[in-house]
C-alpha cells in the first residue's frame, strides 16, 4: 500500500487547481474577469493559468461586470464553457441584468435548445476586515432567480469538487466562494484531488441528536465550533452543510430535523428575506409534527454590511448560536 502525502492546502489553492484541471480536461473552458490573468486574481485563485494556458484561455477583461458576463453569454452560445470571476460580491451587481434576464433564462426561453454552461465565481461574505462593498452576502438575490444553481463550498475538498461539478454543469452556476475561508487549510492531496461532488446534495458534517444547525459556506466553521462548545451545556448538535442552496436538498435536511426535532438556520446574509426564511418554511412544512420548537434563525442583522471595526457584532458567532439553541423550548422536555 502506497502512502499518499496529504499536505495542508488552502481553499484558494484547491479552487485554482480545479480551474487548472478543468481547463486541461476541456479546451472549451475559458477563465475571464478582472485581473485574473497576469496578476492571478486579487485572491490569487487564477494564479498561473494565463501562463499555462495563454491569455486567450485566461483573459484579463475590461473593468465592466455586465460586459464580462454578457460576452461570456455569447461565448457560451458558441459552445465554450466560460468561467467568469466577479472580483467581489458587491461588484457583481452591474451584471445582474445579464444574469437575471439572460443567463438564468436562455434554456427556458429556447425550450431547451440552447443551454448556457457558465460558471460565475463570486467571492462573498464578510469577516475579512473589508471596507464598504467588499463583504456582502448576496446569495438571496441569486436564490430568488429560477434557472440558476447556487453553490457554496465550506471545505477545501468541496472547493475543488464542487467547482469541477459547476464547470461541468450544462446549467449556469453561481459559485459563491466564502472569502474568509480562502486561506483556511485542510488536509487535501493536491496530487489526487477529491472526486467531483454532485451539485444539490447537502452533507452532515457533525452528527448529533439534540438539534440541527443548518448552515453553509462561511458559517460552517462557526457552527462546528458552536457544536463543540454546546457539549458543555449537554447538547449534542448535528451540523448540516447545505453546499448547494439551489437545488435545495430537502431530503438531507428533513431527515436530520425529523430525528433531532429542533433546528436553527445559521448564515451571514440578513435575516429578513434571507435564505433562512425559505429554509425554515421548508423545514416546518415537512417536519411540523416532529418539531419540539419553532425553527430559529441566527443570521446577519437587517442592516447594510457594517464597517470592518464593527463587523464582529453583525456576524453570527458561537454565543449567538448557543443562545438560539437555548431558546429551542428544552423546558418542555422536563
Amino acid at each position, binding site marked *: 500500500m502506497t502512502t499518499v502525502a496529504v499536505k495542508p492546502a488552502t481553499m484558494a489553492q484547491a479552487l485554482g487547481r480545479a480551474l487548472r484541471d478543468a481547463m486541461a480536461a476541456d479546451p472549451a473552458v*475559458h477563465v475571464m474577469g478582472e485581473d485574473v490573468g497576469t496578476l492571478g486574481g486579487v485572491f490569487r485563485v487564477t494564479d498561473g493559468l494565463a501562463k499555462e494556458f495563454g491569455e*486567450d484561455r485566461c483573459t484579463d*477583461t*475590461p473593468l*465592466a461586470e*455586465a*460586459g464580462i*458576463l*454578457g*460576452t*461570456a*453569454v*455569447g*461565448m*457560451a*452560445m*458558441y*459552445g*465554450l464553457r*466560460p468561467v467568469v470571476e466577479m472580483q467581489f460580491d458587491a461588484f457583481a451587481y*452591474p451584471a445582474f*441584468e*445579464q444574469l437575471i*434576464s*439572460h443567463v438564468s*433564462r*436562455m*434554456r*427556458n*426561453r*429556447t*425550450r*431547451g*435548445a*440552447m*443551454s448556457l454552461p457558465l460558471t460565475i465565481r463570486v467571492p462573498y461574505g464578510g469577516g475579512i476586515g473589508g471596507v464598504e462593498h467588499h463583504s456582502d452576502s448576496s446569495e438571496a438575490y441569486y436564490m430568488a432567480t*429560477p*434557472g440558476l*444553481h447556487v453553490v457554496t463550498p465550506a471545505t477545501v475538498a468541496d472547493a475543488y469538487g464542487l467547482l469541477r461539478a459547476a464547470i461541468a*454543469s*450544462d*446549467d449556469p452556476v453561481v459559485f459563491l466562494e466564502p472569502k474568509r475561508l480562502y486561506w483556511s487549510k485542510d488536509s487535501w492531496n493536491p496530487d489526487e484531488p477529491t472526486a467531483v461532488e454532485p451539485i*444539490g446534495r447537502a452533507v452532515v458534517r457533525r452528527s448529533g441528536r439534540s438539534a440541527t444547525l443548518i448552515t453553509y459556506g462561511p458559517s460552517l466553521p462557526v457552527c462546528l465550533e458552536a457544536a463543540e462548545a454546546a457539549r458543555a451545556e449537554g447538547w449534542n448538535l448535528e451540523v448540516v452543510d447545505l453546499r448547494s442552496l*439551489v*437545488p*435545495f436538498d*430537502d*431530503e438531507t435536511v428533513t431527515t436530520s430535523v425529523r430525528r433531532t426535532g429542533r433546528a436553527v438556520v445559521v448564515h451571514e446574509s440578513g435575516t429578513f428575506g434571507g435564505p433562512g426564511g425559505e429554509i425554515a418554511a421548508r423545514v416546518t412544512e415537512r417536519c411540523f409534527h416532529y418539531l419540539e420548537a419553532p425553527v430559529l434563525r441566527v443570521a446577519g442583522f437587517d442592516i447594510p454590511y457594517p464597517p470592518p471595526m464593527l463587523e464582529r457584532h453583525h456576524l453570527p458567532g458561537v454565543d449567538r448560536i448557543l443562545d438560539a439553541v437555548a431558546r429551542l423550548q428544552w423546558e418542555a422536555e422536563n
Partner: protein
Amino acid sequence: MTVMEQRGAYRPTPPPAWQPRTDPAPLLPDEVPYRVLGTDAAAEADPGLLRRLYGELVRGRRYNTQATALTKQGRLAVYPSSTGQEACQVAAALVLEERDWLFPSYRDTLAAVARGLDPVQALGLLRGDWHSGYDPRERRIAPLCTPLATQLPHAVGLAHAARLQGDDVVALALVGDGGTSEGDFHEALNFAAVWQAPVVFLVQNNGFAISVPLAKQTAAPSLAHKAVGYGMPGRLVDGNDAAAVHQVLGEAVAHARAGGGPTLVEAVTYRMEAHTNADDDKRYRADSEVEAWRAHDPIALLEHALTERGLLDEAGIEAAREDAEAMAADLRERMNQDPALDPMDLFGHVYDQPTTQLLEQEAQLRAELAAEERHHESEGAPR
C-alpha cells in the same frame, strides 16, 4: 527624496511622451448619411441586388402590415412595427452568410424573416406561446431580445469565441437609438474594440425611443461618432436607402471577417408607426413630421431608382405585390390556428434536470389540470 533634499539638483521634467493610441481621423463618420439611391452611384449599383432588395422590401412592408392586423384580431399580444425601417431590416439579413449570426431586438422580426426564419416562428414571442419561437442555432439567429442593448455583449462574445476557434464567422447586432444610452451598449462596444471582435453594430436611429426623441437621448454629434471613443470606425448611412445600407453593412461585415475588427453603423431612418399597437404617437409627434418621412419611403425610393434605370416595370411591381400577398395570406392562415401548448413544458426547461422542488410543483399543476378535466367531463362541457 524631496525637492529640498536634492538641493537644487532637481529639474522639472515633462511627463513621459504622450500620443493618441489610435489616429481618430479614419474612424470618423461621413458628415452626412451616405446615400446611393438618388445619387450618381445609383447607376452603378448591381441590378440583381437592387431587384432582390426591392422584392424583399415589398414583402417586408406587407409582413409589417399583416402583423399589425393580427394584433387587432387578437392573434398577437403586441407588435412593434418596423414599417419605414424595412431597408435596414432587409439589408441586415442579406449581408450575412449562413454561418454568420444575427442578434435582433424585438423590433427586428423582419430581419429574422428576411434571413429565412419562418414568420410564424419569428412571431412566437409576440404571440405569447413561448418566449422564443425558434431554435437560435437553426438559422444562427439569437432569440429576440427585449431588454434594450443587452444582446450586444452576446454578439461580441459569440464573435470573439468564433475567432478564438478559428472560425470565419461575423456577428451582426441590431439596436435602436434609445438602446445607445444603455450601459450594455457602451460595454459591448468597448469589449468589441479591445478584443477586435468580428462584430458589426447596426444602430437603427428611427427618431424615437417610444416617445422620447433623439435630442433627449444624446448630445453626440451623431450616434456614429460614438464609435471613435472606442477606437472603431463609425459609419453614417441613409437608413431608408436599401442600396446604401446594404453597401455600408456589407463593407463592415467584410472588414470584420478579414480581421479588421468591429464597426458601428448608424442608419438614419424613421419609425412610421407608433412604438407598438398599444402606443399613441399622436401624443408626442406631429403628423407633418411623419408625412415628411413618408416622402422618403424606402420602397418608393428603390422603386423609383429601378424604374428610372429600366430595371422594373408595372408587371414587375405587380409580381412583387402578388408574392407579398401570398406570403401574407399564408401567415394569416397559420396564425389563425391556435398553437398547441403543453403546460407541463413550463417545468421542463428551467434546468437540465428538474429540481425536486420543480417536480413537486409540476405534480401540483398536473393534479390541478386533471381535476379541471374531470370537472369538464362531469359537466359534459365541450373542452
